[in-house]
């Protein structure tokens, strides 16, 4: 008769349970990895199209159509192309795979460090930077003529619990916001996670601008005053989510500042 309370039995049982549960989880993770990767890719690309207002939030669009918008075939005569530029707004000739692997948060961090160091370091960092973004074309002809209808820049910063990752899309006039979306965050549901809800996102399309009244580039900032928040350079703070709001402010400031040369470059080209 086994003594269930003996130490060897307890160790043996614990080891058996651990091996069995570990094997089951390992099998699950490897069996579902491919499907998870595709689902995450479709979700992220849907968020980019949400930011461009090509797909409305909640609108049901087949996964293959979402993916097609990013391919040469396009979807609904809309084409989204991944591009990258240096810190001076000069377009870089990089493969799609290389652009996908770029880490915009790390690139912005390098630029910030160089900015705090010296003007020479900053100039060098700007020349070496690789800032990825997405350009939206409203037709095949616009794509051929490189006349984007909008740009989506990746934005990210730490909120309360985690880094929030999203996209800020700007119209082809390089001034008016098309939309803002987040595809990854760990903020509190009902509070900070409201960055994903209409209460936050509906404030942006066509209402906010990244230039002030005199035409200078500025970052859109949070405001607790509802009437001030209706202005083109402010948005209404998230209620009960001070840290998340600070994170949103920080990412808008950093990314707008360092992506500004891209917009200037495109404006100058017109």
């Amino acid at each position, binding site marked *: 008769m086994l003594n*269930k*309370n003996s130490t060897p039995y307890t160790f043996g*049982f614990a080891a058996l349970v651990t091996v069995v549960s570990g094997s089951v989880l390992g099998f699950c993770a490897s069996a579902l990895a491919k499907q998870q990767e595709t*689902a995450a890719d479709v979700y992220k690309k849907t968020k980019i199209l949400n930011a461009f207002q090509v797909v409305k939030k909640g609108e049901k669009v087949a996964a293959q159509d979402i993916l097609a918008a990013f391919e040469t075939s396009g979807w609904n005569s809309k084409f989204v192309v991944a591009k990258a530029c240096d810190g001076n707004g000069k377009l870089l000739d990089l493969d799609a795979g290389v652009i996908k692997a770029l880490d915009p948060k790390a690139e912005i961090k390098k630029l910030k460090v160089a900015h705090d160091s010296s003007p020479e370091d900053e100039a060098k960092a700007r020349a070496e930077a690789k800032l990825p973004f997405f350009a939206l074309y409203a037709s095949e002809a616009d794509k051929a003529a490189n006349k984007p209808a909008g740009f989506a820049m990746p934005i990210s910063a730490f909120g309360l619990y985690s880094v929030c990752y999203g996209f800020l899309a700007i119209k082809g006039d390089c001034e008016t916001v098309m939309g803002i979306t987040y595809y990854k965050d760990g903020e509190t549901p009902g509070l900070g996670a409201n960055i994903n809800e209409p209460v936050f996102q509906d404030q942006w399309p066509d209402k906010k601008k990244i230039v002030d009244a005199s035409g200078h580039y500025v970052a859109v900032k949070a405001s607790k005053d509802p009437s001030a928040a209706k202005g083109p350079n402010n948005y209404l703070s998230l209620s009960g989510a001070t840290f998340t709001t600070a994170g949103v402010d920080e990412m808008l400031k950093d990314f707008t500042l360092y992506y500004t040369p891209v917009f200037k470059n495109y404006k100058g080209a017109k």
Partner: protein
Amino acid sequence: MSAPANDGLFSPANMKTIKDPFIVNNPIAVQVLGICSALAVTTSMKPAIIMAVAVSLVTGFATLAISLMRNWIPGKIRMIVELVVISTLVIIVDQLLKAYAYELSAKLSVFVGLIITNCIVMGRCEAFALNNKPWPSFLDGFCNGAGYGALLIITAVFREILGSGKIFDMHIIPESWYASNGGWYYDNGIMIVPTGAFVVIAVLIWIHREYTKQYDK
């Protein structure tokens, strides 16, 4: 708690095990368990239904697994073993959601993982599965999860309609009623924050106690 000796899959004793979690011994209305996730995932129907299904499956299969092992689990590491089984099942559910319902997985965020800490799951393993055969244990676990889920869904119906004017993300309040379109109607903002869930759940508990006459003495 041990179920009376019974024969057959749906014997009177098993039917009692199935029915009790819905009314007489509902995990939320009577035991007031699982409130944290109930506040977070009931702003709309879809996450509430997914959470209800996830908790039902995890509780059902956790109690089944613990019941199958009940004669071999060493007493000293009983709860650790329960936790390993529950965690494994929750991670499988999380992985499946990430593969086949990514958007809902993102919306439910940490609350899928937090099923591990939901007192209902370990409570049923400890109170029922360790002392009962596999089939009644599965019924008890699944139905306790479903009883919890039923209250989540009822709460979500009120919160989505009153808070957003929608049900399953479809508008049911006519657009012309809204003040922004010249009408008189406003969505009730309190329903989309956790406070709204407290109000709805409190009212449901009140109705439940009036119906069952289960008063605190």
